[in-house]
């Protein structure tokens, strides 16, 4: 076992961060130490593994998804406009008060309309979407995307309480769903209904076949502690 300071010096030598003097000292030590040379060979293997690790090529969906969201009008990138001259005459406190009243209305107006009982939000574009459905004491994250000829729905409960997640929709789609349920138990209480019960934190993935055109989306409902909330999920489009 070589001392830590020698090991550190070897790391710096191989990482190219040793000064010429430090490098010369370490090389001199290596010339006299078989253990040191063995250690250098081990570290060279480690550095090579890191150097040769594959770099992933970003899939085209990355750029397409971003540009699709932007062109659909997520928001403009423009600079905040300068305050109009006439507004300079209005005291800043009055402006702030007006903004406090009006801004939440504008924000709500910009959100996608959701059914009344939903306590959550949907974000995304036509190709993928995320939703967060909440009831007091429990929350489930939902992600929807298209993979080949299937719609993939990922559900993840935060584990604060036992939950039931019910999917309702076209009976043929739900009957032929492939379910990777993990710790969840799966039941089919009737045509067009699929229920996952999770005792705590856990996740499940459903792969639903997509019709060539006009597939009807499913609805997800979260139930926990006698409360429920849900939302309809968009069907991801084929453009990615």
């Amino acid at each position, binding site marked *: 076992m070589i001392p830590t300071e020698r090991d550190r010096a070897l790391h*710096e030598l191989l990482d190219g961060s040793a000064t010429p003097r430090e490098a010369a000292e370490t090389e001199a030590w290596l010339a006299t130490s078989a253990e040191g040379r063995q250690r250098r060979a081990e570290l060279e293997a480690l550095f090579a593994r890191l150097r040769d690790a594959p770099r*992933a090529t970003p*899939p085209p969906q990355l*750029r397409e*998804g971003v540009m699709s969201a932007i062109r659909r009008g997520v928001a403009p*990138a423009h600079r905040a406009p300068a305050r109009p001259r006439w507004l300079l005459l209005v005291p800043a406190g009055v402006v702030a008060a007006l903004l406090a009243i009006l801004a939440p209305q504008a924000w709500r107006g910009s959100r996608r309309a959701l059914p009344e009982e939903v306590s959550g939000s949907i974000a995304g574009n036509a190709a993928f979407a995320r939703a967060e459905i909440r009831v007091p004491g429990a929350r489930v994250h939902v992600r929807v995307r298209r993979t080949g000829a299937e719609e993939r729905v990922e559900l993840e409960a935060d584990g604060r309480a036992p939950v039931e997640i019910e999917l309702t929709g076209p009976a043929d789609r739900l009957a032929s769903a492939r379910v990777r349920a993990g710790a969840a138990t799966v039941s089919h209480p009737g045509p067009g209904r699929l229920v996952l019960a999770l005792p705590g934190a856990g996740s499940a993935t459903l792969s639903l076949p997509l019709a060539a055109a006009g597939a009807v989306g499913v609805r997800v409902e979260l139930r926990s502690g006698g409360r429920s909330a849900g939302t309809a999920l968009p069907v991801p489009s084929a453009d990615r």
Partner: protein
Amino acid sequence: MGESDEGGLVERALQGDTGAFEQLVESHQAVVYNLAWRMLGNAEDALDVSQAVFTKAWLKLATFDRRNRLFSWIYRIAINETLNHRRRRRRTEPIEDTLPDTGAGPHERHEAEERSRILQEALMELGADDREIVVLHHLLGFSHREVGDLRGLPEKTVKSRLFTARQRLEAGLRRRGLGGA
């Protein structure tokens, strides 16, 4: 892409030119995607996070201080999004490597994917700070100084943390039978 070219693209994007912004996405997507991929260990999550990063960059571009480097600004969004995503998703999934086509045969390719999978498992065992610094320096090729600039750390601290992180990584690889020369 030179800084002046990039400055021009930022200016055009601020005028609403989505094509200019698309060029900025093209320019930085590989680093952002690979950072997210290695930090999260999952290609799908990396895609989600990368899309969220650039969408957020578009939304907030007007707040970018052009005295700074654009990548540093995007990087801060990327690392925040990555860490937030990881906090939300406690589970991890096996990495789905998309190895570039090297012309290797199926056996060599399988071996390379296996080595990459084991490396990713060992990386995922590191703390987020250690993993980030190893990914930035060794997998994404940033110098010690650049890592320090991105992380707000002195260069000396970066070197010291890298040393500790590599020791931990090496121990993880050994446990998986990939240690030694």
